[in-house]
């Protein structure tokens, strides 16, 4: 067993937040029965939307492919239980942009019959790394930490760059959320073997498994399972409980003391970061042939009767999950998907649980923030910013819409962790302002690209007009020359031709 280590890098800023995780971790993972209706968005990942391959009225089985990716970045979607496809239509979802998205809606038959496995799985060690990566692509597996980047493509990109270490992210730094904690407690072996599979797919020999210090139980179980596996390539590492140490770049900084360059990825520092849930999903698919059909979601907050962690089929509505957890308490005012720091509040609980849904947070009172006052330039925000930006300066430029200075001051590196909001004595919603400013920068870039294209087309047209004019002139000149050269014989011939024409 590898002992927890404390040789850590420096993470700038961050906050020690109240965990508020006890309520949901008091009991184990509860398995939720299959609901009557499943709503499966065709976009549950970063990239292009998957193409539905089933029709309305069709019967589907659990694990059957219902939407596929032909090319480009993306992940397929599978039916999460057996039943009948009753509709493919827009449905409210939770995501950053837009509030409805096309979903495949399945009415379940209760039998929960799984599709027959095409093949019995061979041991992953006997597969070539390429074959393993392709297999992972078909499992619909995406990053379950919340970013939902398609895992197979992440592995392929990592393969192309020079990485040495797999960094397994067991750091759940946001308050309230405890799904990864419970997963590590109850499925430590699956997570560890999943990590071995990723290492095999990338042909690397080093894995650092980072777990926060507020999860001693998970750490203990992992250590026990790791000893049983006897894999010396995997090292457990305990890291302090500081928000947002679970961010990819922040975790690399903490574990390796290497800074991920601005605009870069952890792979640029030689690390590939994967969430523990993703590793478990890879295990389930590669070893047992079950694609990504369910995930563990924390249902918590003072607005829920019995806070707990639920193993829930993707496509189950938030309303069903909350019902399973004993329903709402009185006076619930806020419903959030994700944690209190980076989550998104939703206006309806008809929203389905998707691959990204790590937490459903119901609160009786919205996180309190006072009235917004003027910035007093105290610099508290700069002190807590984990990316070492200067939020007060960015705020200044965001107000004056100064795109160039926003870029210079690194707005695009902001990870929207919300630390600056929390410490601001003037209660300025800095993160929200930055989000809007980022949107505007993107818009401006689009506009610029459009203008450049229009300029090229305008110039090409002018060139074409000039060329045509020139051609016309030279043709006319040629005809003139020809006429000049013509002698009496040609003129007689010409006249004859014209007379003949008149006769016709």
């Amino acid at each position, binding site marked *: 067993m590898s002992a927890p280590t404390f040789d850590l890098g420096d993470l700038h800023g961050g906050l020690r937040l109240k965990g508020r995780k006890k309520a949901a971790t008091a009991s184990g993972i509860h398995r939720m029965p299959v609901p009557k209706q499943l709503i499966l968005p065709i976009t549950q990942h970063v990239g292009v939307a998957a193409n539905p391959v089933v029709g309305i009225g069709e019967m589907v089985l659990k694990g059957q492919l219902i939407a596929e990716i032909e090319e480009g970045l993306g992940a397929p979607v599978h039916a999460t239980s057996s039943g009948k496809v009753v509709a493919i239509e827009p449905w409210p979802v939770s995501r950053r942009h837009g509030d409805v998205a096309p979903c495949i809606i399945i009415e379940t038959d209760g039998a929960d019959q799984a599709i027959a496995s095409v093949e019995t799985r061979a041991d992953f060690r006997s597969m070539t790394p390429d074959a393993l990566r392709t297999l992972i692509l078909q499992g619909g597996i995406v990053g379950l930490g919340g970013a939902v980047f398609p895992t197979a493509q992440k592995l392929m990109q990592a393969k192309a760059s020079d990485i040495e270490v797999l960094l397994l992210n067991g750091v759940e730094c946001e308050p309230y959320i405890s799904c990864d904690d419970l997963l590590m407690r109850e499925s430590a072996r699956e997570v560890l073997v999943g990590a071995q599979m990723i290492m095999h797919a990338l042909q690397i020999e080093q894995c650092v498994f980072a777990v926060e210090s507020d999860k001693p139980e998970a750490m203990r179980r992992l250590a026990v399972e790791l000893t049983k596996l006897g894999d010396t390539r995997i090292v457990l590492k305990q890291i302090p409980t500081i928000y947002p140490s679970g961010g990819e770049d922040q975790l690399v900084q903490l574990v390796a003391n290497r800074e991920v360059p601005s605009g870069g990825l952890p792979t640029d520092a030689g690390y590939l970061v994967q969430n523990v849930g993703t590793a478990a999903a890879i295990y389930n698919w590669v070893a047992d042939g079950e694609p990504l059909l369910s995930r563990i979601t924390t249902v918590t907050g003072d607005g829920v009767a019995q806070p707990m962690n639920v193993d829930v089929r993707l496509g189950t509505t938030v309303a069903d999950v909350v019902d399973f957890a004993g329903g709402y308490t009185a006076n619930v005012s806020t419903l959030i998907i994700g944690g209190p720091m980076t989550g998104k509040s939703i206006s309806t609980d008809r929203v389905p649980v998707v691959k990204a849904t790590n937490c459903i947070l119901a609160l009786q009172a919205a996180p309190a923030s006072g009235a917004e006052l003027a910035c007093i330039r105290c610099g508290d925000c700069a002190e807590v910013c984990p990316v070492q930006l200067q939020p007060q300066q960015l705020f200044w430029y965001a107000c004056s819409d100064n795109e160039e200075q926003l870029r210079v001051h690194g707005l695009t590196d902001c990870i929207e962790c919300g630390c600056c909001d929390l410490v601001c004595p003037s209660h300025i919603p800095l993160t929200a302002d930055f989000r809007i400013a980022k949107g505007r920068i993107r818009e401006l870039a689009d506009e610029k690209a*459009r203008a450049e294209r*229009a300029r090229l087309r305008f110039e090409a047209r*002018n060139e074409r007009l000039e060329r045509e004019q020139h051609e016309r002139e030279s043709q006319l000149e040629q005809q003139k020359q020809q006429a000049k050269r013509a002698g009496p014989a040609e003129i007689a011939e010409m006249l004859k031709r014209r007379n003949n024409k008149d006769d016709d």
Partner: protein
Amino acid sequence: MITAVLVIAGIALIAGLALGIASSKLQSDNKDLVEQVNALLPQTQCAQCGYVGCRPYAAAIVAGEAEINLCPPGGEQTVKRLATMLGKEIIPLAQAAPVVVAVAVIDESRCIGCFHCRNACPVDAILGAPQLMHTVIAAECTGCELCVAPCPVDCISMQVPA
């Protein structure tokens, strides 16, 4: 006394010569400046400034023939950027900026294939052949509205893309 006068006169002569040579050899590149000004314009090619396109307008600005506030699609932002770049005063727009950018849409059932709109389009964003129906390539349309007036059957309208 005489030495001092000679020395000063000599310095003045040398400096004058150096500056004279420099100004003739290292002429400020007007063409480059036109490109830089052009890069700040929105490239709508709408001719609302009175010039046939963004580049000609840029050339006119550099030549000092045109004010910097003649570009409605660019809006106040563009005036501000031009003023900063050229060291001029920020002045209000001569014409109000459009609220939303729309693209031209041809009602294809009414198009008679006259080709007038295609000839008017400054960015060749209209496809079609004489006597055949035309259509607008929406992604390339800059919303300049130059094709609307020439249409003899009024089948072109400006619509905000969904």
